[in-house]
């Protein structure tokens, strides 16, 4: 389900982050959403249409417009570059909102941890929490104030709940200090780089936070060694697809024009799951449980690979 929108405002938040305000083309209200939701934006790249995913950082209390913040990256598929070159009036097709990083409704307190562009899901969350007088803390790491998206806004509106950490000033988030002595019912939300996320989870588990109280939004896949290519044999269509060492199975299937669904493209949502009939799988996702991974009968095409030279998939 798609919505046709246009860009009505563009603001530079930092040298590399712009926020875009989108309204429905005919002035109608956009679809409602819950805090933490994201949308897919269709981006034309050459002859193809890619879908990039951006969190809604406007408040869910109104749907006259959506705000999305986009970080310009060099190693993207071209989506951020397209948007950064866009002007006011540019028309876009976007999906209905979807939420895979929502607030826990039974939590008594929320601790939100952000690194860089990871701040985006928290804007709508803190608007909601603040309106409903629900306690929260926001711990936000960035290189400096000038590279900290929404710094002025957060300092002004949420000064008592936000703590900033600027690496240029050698200020770093301490998982221990953030997590210890928190009251019962505290949930933590992590939208931070992999290594800091790992430290937080390790510390939270050692304190005794249950798994259900730790929420993560995957913001960048794990760096993996992708040196080996492999062949995917498609059992239904009888095709053989070579997956080069610097490509994913999803990309190889798309290049071969084999229809396959996808969403996050970083192993977090399960949309690109394929059944595996034979061959050992190297799971690189953050979606399956350890039990599911040992079953070796399905994989996420966007990130996982064959352990050996060949694999047979049910496509």
């Amino acid at each position, binding site marked *: 389900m798609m919505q046709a929108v246009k860009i009505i405002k563009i603001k530079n938040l930092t040298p590399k982050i712009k926020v875009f305000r989108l309204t429905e083309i005919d002035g109608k209200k956009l679809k409602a959403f819950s805090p933490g939701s994201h949308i897919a934006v269709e981006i034309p790249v050459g002859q193809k249409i890619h879908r990039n995913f951006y969190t809604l950082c406007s408040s869910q209390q109104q749907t006259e417009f959506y705000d999305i913040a986009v970080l310009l990256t060099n190693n993207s598929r071209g989506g951020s570059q397209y948007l950064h070159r866009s002007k006011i009036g540019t028309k876009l097709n976007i999906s209905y909102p979807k939420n895979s990083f929502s607030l826990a409704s*039974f939590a*008594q307190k929320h601790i939100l941890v952000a690194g860089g562009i990871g701040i985006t899901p928290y804007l709508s969350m803190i608007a909601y929490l603040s309106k409903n007088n629900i306690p929260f803390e926001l711990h936000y790491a960035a290189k400096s104030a000038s590279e900290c998206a929404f710094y002025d806004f957060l300092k002004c509106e949420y000064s008592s709940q936000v703590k900033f950490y600027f690496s240029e000033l050698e200020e770093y988030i301490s998982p221990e200090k953030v997590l210890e002595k*928190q009251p*019962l*019912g505290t949930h933590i939300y992590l939208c931070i780089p992999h290594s800091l996320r790992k430290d937080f989870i390790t510390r939270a588990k050692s304190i*005794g*936070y*249950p798994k*259900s*109280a730790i929420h993560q939004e995957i913001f960048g896949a794990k760096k993996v060694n992708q040196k080996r290519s492999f062949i995917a044999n498609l059992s239904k269509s009888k095709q053989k697809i070579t997956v080069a060492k610097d490509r994913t199975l999803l990309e190889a299937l798309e290049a071969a024009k084999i229809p396959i669904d996808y969403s996050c493209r970083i192993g977090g949502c399960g949309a690109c799951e394929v059944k595996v009939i034979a061959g050992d799988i190297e799971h690189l996702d953050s979606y399956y449980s350890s039990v599911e991974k040992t079953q070796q009968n399905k994989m996420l095409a966007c990130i996982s690979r064959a352990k050996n030279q060949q694999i047979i998939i049910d496509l």
Partner: protein
Amino acid sequence: MNSISLLTKFEFDLSGSRHIVCAEGDAVDLICNQIEKLGYVPENTNILCLSESIVVDKKLNIKYVSTLENLIAKLIENLSSAYMGTRFYAVGSEQFVGDLRNHPIRLGMGSDEITLAVVERKKKRVFCSTCHEINTQVTTKIFNCFYCGIKLEIWSHFSCLKNAYLGVCADAEEVL
């Protein structure tokens, strides 16, 4: 929904860093057995036992409380100052466990932080669907409501909120 399954064994959830245990009478034995099996008392374990006298004569830090009201008051005191990492356990009859379960939940504890161990359910609490009163200590499947006198049949449907089974009129369809 159905009520909690009967316990087969009690175990500490050692992923927690603090343990608040409430036991009813002899059920405290189960906790002591588990501690013996472990060979140590998990750090920061606090055991409250509902009993008018000492049940186990072992060197364990067990606080005995003679009434349910006092036990609940002590429990709330403990929970109010507890931090994340705490695990809660209630071990005893179905009525006892049901009386305690809502307190940690109200403070935000999730199901993976709470262990409910029902050791017997001979006596049931039954909600009368006619007069809406709750009958306690019911031991038969069919009985007369203590309040309105209607003959009730106990169904398997259990309300966590009311901590009671549903009792419906047993002879509603009999021809008068």
